[in-house]
C-alpha cells in the first residue's frame, strides 16, 4: 500500500490537470479538428479580433472588481460585528445563501428585479449583476474572516480600549491589521467566484452586461471551437497567475 498511494496520487493529479493541459495544447493546433496539424497562433488572433468576446471579458473584470471590493468591505465589517455578538437572522441568511442552489438564487433575483423595476424605471444591467455577485460572495467573505477572528485574542482590543482608543480606533488599528491576510484571502475567493459565475449572471444580465462565462457557454453549446480552447487557456493561465501571486504575497 505504501507504493500504491503515490501511484494513485499521480493518476489523480493527471485526472485533475490533464484535461486543461490538453485544451492548452490544442489551442495552438493549426487544424480545427482533433488532428494535430502543426503549431499555429491563429486561434489567439481570432480571439483578439472578436469584439464581443473582448467586451464581455472587460465586463467580467469590471463586475468582479466592483463586486469583490464591495463584498470584502461589507463582509469584513459584518463578520466583525457577528463576532462581537451573533445575529441569528443574519447568520442564518448568510448560511442560506450558501446552501441555495444557483438556479433558485438566479430566478429569485430575476423575479425581484423585474418586480421592483416596475416602480423604479430601471432595467437589468451591470448594476444588477454586481448586486447579485455581492449577494452570493458575501457569505464566503464572512466565513473566511470569522475563521480568522476565532483565533483572535480579544484582550488585545480591550487593551487598546483601556489605553484610550475609541471603539472604531481599536478595530481599525488592532483587529484590522490582524485580519489583513484573511481579507486578502476572502477578496481572492470573492473575485474567483464572481468571475466564474454563469447561472446567476445569465439570468440577471442585461443588454450591456454580457460576461465572459456567458460567451463561453454560448460557444460551448455550439460544440468544440478552437477559439474557445484559446480563451480557456488564457483564462486558466490568467487566474492561475493571479492565485500564485496572491499566495506569494500572503507568505511575504
Amino acid at each position, binding site marked *: 500500500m505504501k507504493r500504491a498511494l503515490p501511484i494513485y496520487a499521480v493518476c489523480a493529479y493527471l485526472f485533475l490537470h490533464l484535461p486543461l493541459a490538453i485544451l492548452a495544447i490544442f489551442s495552438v493546433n493549426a487544424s480545427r*479538428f482533433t488532428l494535430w496539424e502543426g503549431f499555429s497562433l491563429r486561434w489567439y488572433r481570432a480571439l483578439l479580433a472578436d469584439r*464581443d468576446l473582448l467586451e464581455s471579458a*472587460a465586463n467580467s473584470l*469590471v463586475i468582479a*472588481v*466592483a463586486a*469583490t*471590493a*464591495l463584498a*470584502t*468591505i461589507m463582509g469584513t465589517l459584518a463578520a466583525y460585528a457577528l463576532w462581537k455578538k451573533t445575529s441569528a437572522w443574519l447568520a442564518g441568511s448568510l448560511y442560506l445563501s450558501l446552501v441555495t442552489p444557483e438556479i433558485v438564487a438566479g430566478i429569485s433575483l430575476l423575479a425581484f428585479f*423585474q418586480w421592483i*423595476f416596475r416602480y423604479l424605471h*430601471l*432595467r*437589468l*444591467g*451591470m448594476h444588477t449583476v454586481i448586486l447579485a455577485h455581492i449577494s452570493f460572495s458575501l457569505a464566503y467573505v464572512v466565513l473566511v474572516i470569522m475563521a480568522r477572528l476565532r483565533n483572535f485574542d480579544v484582550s488585545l482590543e480591550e487593551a487598546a480600549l483601556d489605553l484610550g482608543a475609541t471603539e472604531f480606533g481599536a478595530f481599525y488599528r488592532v483587529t484590522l*491589521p490582524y485580519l*489583513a491576510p484573511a481579507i*486578502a484571502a476572502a*477578496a481572492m475567493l470573492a473575485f474567483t467566484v464572481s468571475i466564474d459565475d454563469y447561472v446567476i449572471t445569465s439570468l440577471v444580465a*442585461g*443588454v*450591456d452586461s*454580457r460576461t465572459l462565462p456567458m460567451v463561453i457557454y*454560448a460557444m460551448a*453549446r*455550439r*460544440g*468544440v*471551437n478552437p477559439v474557445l480552447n484559446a480563451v480557456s487557456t488564457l483564462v486558466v493561465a490568467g487566474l492561475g497567475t493571479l492565485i500564485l501571486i496572491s499566495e506569494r*504575497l500572503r507568505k*511575504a
Partner: protein
Amino acid sequence: MNRRRFLARIVKTAAIPAASAILANCNSGPRLNVYNWSDYVAPDTVANFEREAGLRVRYGTYESNQEMLAQVLSGNSGWDVVFPSADFVGPLRDLGLLAPIRHEWLPNLGALDAAFRHPPWDPDLRWSIPYMYGATGILYQRNLMPQPRAWADLWDPRLGGKITMLEDATEVFGACLKKLGYSLNSAEPGELRAAAAEAERQKPLLRAYLNAEVRDQVVAGDVAVAQAWAVTAAQAIAAAPDRLAFAYPDEGFARFADNIAILRESHRAEAAHRWIDYLLRPPVAASIVQTTRTATCNGAAYGLLPASLRDDPVLYPAPDVLNRGEWFAPQSTASQRLRDRLWTEMKSS
C-alpha cells in the same frame, strides 16, 4: 505588510470610481441595441452600418424565439430591434410590446419580394418587416444508407444516439404532427397528445435537442441526422459540400419567416428605422445572404445573387416541394398552454 495593505486599499477604493468611469464611457454616444438570431448578418454588415450612420450598435444574438421573448417580455429589456418569427409577431403585438413601423421612413421598402408584401401574420406590415424565410427539414450525412426522406426516418433505431431535434416545442411537435398526418398548427388535444407520445418514443434515440448549435457538430460528423432549419443546413453544407445534404420531408414541413420589429420600449425609433432601411437595401441584403446562406424576403437582393445561390435547392426549393410546407400560425392560449405542458412532460420523462 502595512504598505501592501495600504496599496491594496488604494486599489480597491480606486476601483469603484474607475469602474463607473468605464461604465459611463461605454454607454456614451448614440447607439442602437439590436437583438438578432445568431449568424444572421454578414461579418461586416454591422460595422458598415455603424460607420455610415455614425451610431454604435450593440449586437446581441439568441438561439430561439423563447430566449428572445423571455428578455423582451419585461417591457424593460433594453433592446431596440428584435427579429421575431412570423408566429411570434401577433403575440408580441397583442402584448403591446411592439412599436408601429412608419413606412415613410423606409425608402427601400419596395425591395421586398411580392410574396412578402402582405404576409398573413401582418398584412399591412404595420408591426414587422419580413427579413429572411426558410423551412425546417432534415440535415444528414450523405453516406447514410438509405438517405432520410421523411420525418419517420428520424425514428430509425439504427441511428440511435446520432439524431438531434430542434430545441423548440412547436418544431418538434410540428414534425410529430406531420409524421402522423395532422396539421402543423393543430389545436386538437387528441392530436397534440399523440404527437407528444411520438416525441417521447423518439427521445431515447436522440443525442440532444439543439438549434443552430448543431451545425458544427454535423460538420464535424458527431451527428448523423438532424432536424434543422434550412439556413443552418445551407451553412453546414457550405462548410462540407460533399459530405452533407438536406431533405424537405415527404410528409410535409414547417415554413417560417423571421421579421424585423421595433420594440415599444425603445426610444430610438429613428435609428431603428435607419437600421431596417439599411437591411432592406438590396446590396446589403445580398451580401448578407452570401455569407449566411439564408433565403431572403428581399426580391431585389435575390436578383443580385449569383446563380449558384439563386438555384440552391436547399434555400429555394421547387414550387411543388414548397407546397408541401405549411406556415406556423399563432396558437390560442389554451392550445399554447397544452403544448407547453406536453413539452415539459415529454422532456421530463
